Each structure stands twice: as C-alpha cells, then as structure tokens.
C-alpha cells in the first residue's frame, strides 16, 4: 500500500506509518524539505524542527534541510520522526497584505533513489505550520 501524505497544516500531526521498502534496508535515508512561496511581493522566514525519536537532528532550524541524513533504513524501523515547520511571510512590496500561500514538500530518499515525496499548500494564515509525525517501518 502506498504511503499516505503525513503533512498536517496548522494542526498537531497524527501518527502516520511510512514504509521503507526492504530493498533499501542497508541504504542511508535522507530527508529534504522544500518551500515555495506562491505569490510575488513576499518573503518568507522558516524554521524546521526535525526530531528523530525525541532527538533534535537539525538544531540549525533553517534554511530548509537538504539531504539531511536520518539513518540506515534498517535502523529507522520503529522510530518516530517528528517534524514541525513554521513559515512566516513578510510583505516585500506586495500591493496587499494578504499573505502568499506556501507550497511545502517533503522528500524521502534512499541514497539517490526517491522513496516518496509529499506536498501540501497552505492557506493564507500567517504564520502557517506544516507538521508530520511519521513512524518508520522497514521489514
């Protein structure tokens, strides 16, 4: 069964299982987050809290993590990834003060191979949060 989109917008994320195919057991798993602002005249500020089994693995918070090492797939089995991304938007010459919507993408890769990617588009509330709580399965 395909993995479900684990991204929740502006609410606490429920636990979603994320199955890593067993063929990647011995492969390093990477996480990438992409943020795109969908209207001109705006800038964004972002912070990404990435905790793996309650341990902060991205203390810098920003910019968006790119190819962040999680662990080998076999070691991730049964671990929780708690992800909370906060995006604030600032006017940068926009004619109005209605914040730009934001597209948020989560990408999981095994080595150079894409396992799954998920995306969601926010509403116009500011700030907006993208939360995920993932339980890894790899068997």
């Amino acid at each position: 069964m395909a993995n479900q989109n684990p991204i929740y917008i502006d609410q606490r994320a429920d636990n979603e299982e994320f199955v890593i195919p067993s063929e990647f057991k011995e492969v390093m798993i990477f996480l990438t987050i992409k943020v795109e602002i969908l209207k001109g005249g705006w800038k964004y500020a972002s912070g990404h809290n990435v905790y793996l089994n309650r341990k902060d693995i991205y203390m810098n918070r920003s910019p968006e993590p790119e190819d962040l090492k999680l662990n080998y797939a076999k070691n991730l089995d049964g671990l929780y990834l708690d992800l909370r991304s906060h995006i604030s938007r600032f006017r940068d010459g926009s004619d109005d003060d209605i914040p730009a919507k934001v597209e948020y993408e989560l990408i999981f890769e095994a080595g150079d191979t894409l396992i799954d990617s998920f995306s969601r588009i926010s509403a116009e509330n500011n700030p907006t949060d993208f939360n995920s709580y993932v339980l890894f399965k790899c068997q």
Partner: protein
Amino acid sequence: MFRYTNILFLLIIPFLSKGQGGHEDPDIDFELLKVNSAPSFIILGVEPENIQRPNSPRKFVASIQNAVVNGKIVPNVAIETTPYYWKKPTDSIRFSGREFYNNSGFLNTISKTLSLSLSTSETDSVIFGTLKSGTGMGFGLRFLLVDGKMNPLLSDWSKAIIIREYYEHLDMTSRGISDISRYSSILLIETENFKNNYFDKLEYNFFSKANFNRIINQELNNLLTFLNLPSSNNVDAIESFLQASADNAKNNQAKYLDALNSEYEFPLAKQGFILEMVFGNALLFQENKFNQVAHAKGAIWLTPSYSWNLSKHKSRDISLIELMGVLRYTYNNQKDSVDISDYFDIGLKGQYTSNNLTFALEGIYRYASKVPDDIDKNYTYRLVTSLNYKINSLVTFNFNFGTSFNGNTTTYTDAKELFAIGGLNFGIFNRTGSESPEISY
C-alpha cells in the same frame, strides 16, 4: 480594461505667475533629486528594462566581457551587483535573519550594502554637449554609512518565535513518555539544553544572550508554577500546557506579523536614521573609440533620512513622519559644453502620512558655479507644500502651494513663480485591481 476612472478638475489655476518666456518648465522636485535607481543609470540618463545582476565574480567578469564586442563597447548594457553576496548567495525570497541582524560596525555596513553598477548607451548631442557622438558609459557605486534599526515589531515577533521554539522543543523531546517523574526531569534538563545550545542556532533570534536567557527563564518560571499545581500531576496535563503555551506564542507571532504586514509595504526595511552615499560618473567613448574617451559628467549624493512611526503599537492606523534629505554635487565637462556649470543641490522633505491624509513640505536649494550673463544670482530655490486628503474611498482632495524654479541647467532662472493648484480625484467604480491606472496631474 479600466476598472477605475478619475475625473479631474482644477479648483484654482496658478494665481500668481511671472512667466519665464521661452523657458521650458522642467521643475526639479525632491523626487527627482533622490537616487531612485542605480547611479550609473541616473548619470547616463537611461532607464534600462533588462538589468543583469551577476551574483558571483565569474558572472560579473563575464557580464563586463559581454559589454565589449570586437573591441567596441556595446550599447544598452546594464549591470548591477552587490559584491557582499557573491560569497553568500541568498535566495531573494527567503528572509535571512542572520544577515539582517548580525550587522555591527561601520565597515561592515559599508561592505554589506556596497553595490556597483555599470551601463552603456548611445549618446546624442543634447546630453554630451559638443563631444562627438559615440557610446556613453556610466558607472556608479552606492552604500549605506548608517543603516538604521529594525522595526520594533520584529523584536516582538522574534521573542514569540523563541518562546514557541522553547515549548516545542520541550514537547518534542518528551513526546510519548508516560512516566511522570521522567517527564518532569526531561523538561528541566531540556530547558538548560535549550538555553545553552540554541541561542545562536535560531536564525530569527534578535536578542542578546542575556535577554535570550531572560526570556527563557520567564517561561521556565511559568512552567515551574504550573508543575507545582496539584492538577499538573499527570503527563496529559503537562503536555496540554506545553501545547497551549506554544499555541499562545504562535498567536503572538500571528499578531505581530499581521501588524507588520498591514502597516508596512516593506516591514523588513530598516527604520530610524539612514545615511547613504552614492557616486556616479559618465564617460563618453567618442566614435566608439577607446582612445577618444572623455569625461562627461559625474555626481555625488549624500542622502540622510529619518522616520518616526507614530502608530499605536499593534494598531492598523497609519501615522508616520518621515524626514528626507539629499545633498548632491554635480560636476560637468564645461570645456565641451556638456553644461555651463557645476551644481550643488540641497533638498529637504518632511512628510506626514496617516490613513487619509498626506501632508508634505519640501524645499530645494540650488547653487551654480557659473550662470549666464543675464542671470543675477548663483542660486535659486523651490518651496512647496502639498496636501492629499482622502475624503472617502472614491474621492480624494489634492492641494499644492509654493514657489518653484526652472531647474533646466541651460535655462537657469531665479525663483519667481508662485503657484497654487487644487483638485479632486473621483473614482466612479470600485477599485478592484492593483493594475488599475492612476491618473496624475
């Protein structure tokens, strides 16, 4: 398609005017004195549509090389770049908190804000006097000497972020733990961890270490107070407290963002006293030959500005006082009649802006090193007040009063014109799009 229509009429035609027969009327107003684009473009008198913005030394050199083809300078080149960001290319749509906040020191301000520009254009005799036609090249630089202070609402936003990060850190490091004693001890351990290790990790922390710790200690006191309550003796209650505290900080974040974005078109722009230095120079390569280069004109600007935001904190009402100044020295190639004189201009403008009212007073003083024989004085000036009052969403009243001068450098005159002009703008239909045309008069 027009969705907004203005009907204009003059209330008062200029009531006192001593005409300057035969003279053009190219008033220099304050806006024209300001440096509204790259100095190389201004000095060359061009408004390029395609501006190259190289963000690395290699691209910059390539841009320069592309400006010369077969030993000749190519016209219509426009390049603008900020060398500071060659080393640190940043995404133009991402707010870099560290770059924004970590800006201490005079030299740092200059190096961070220094921008270079270069442009070329085919010339004509009007701009460059008796010099032979060819290709003009403008080059310029500008930088801030004093770059102002950040909007105080950004400090409030930053504080809300720190508090939120703190509670979320506690929540995320304790999530799933059911043993209450372990849970409580983790909260205290992680508070120390957060204070010791996250101060310089949070990109949008705009506070000193002491103030950062003060903020966290305040929240820790709130947490300890809660933990001492009898009702807090279970994990669910503490978890709810952490989440409610994070949500409260998020609400504060939202409140400050709303205030920033509703009050300011550029809320990330620095405020207070700002001082900018600008330099521009134009050369002319006559007949497009390198060995026939001649200096045409140049200018140096010094532009101080100060703004006070009088709006009530967190209010949507706009109330802003701005003071702006321009000192400009323009030096011309007089030998080749690019102009008969060098000029020193001082411009000052004060403006009050509220939701419905804009009131401005501006003055310009110009001194010329030489004037034509039929002109008595080496100086002239302009003083103008203007008022713009929005009666309702459809009707705006405008009024201007003052004295002006003909600023054309070849028809230099005294300040003798007095004028008063008023008018109303009527919007017939609701304005529904930002692209609606504005009609000015």
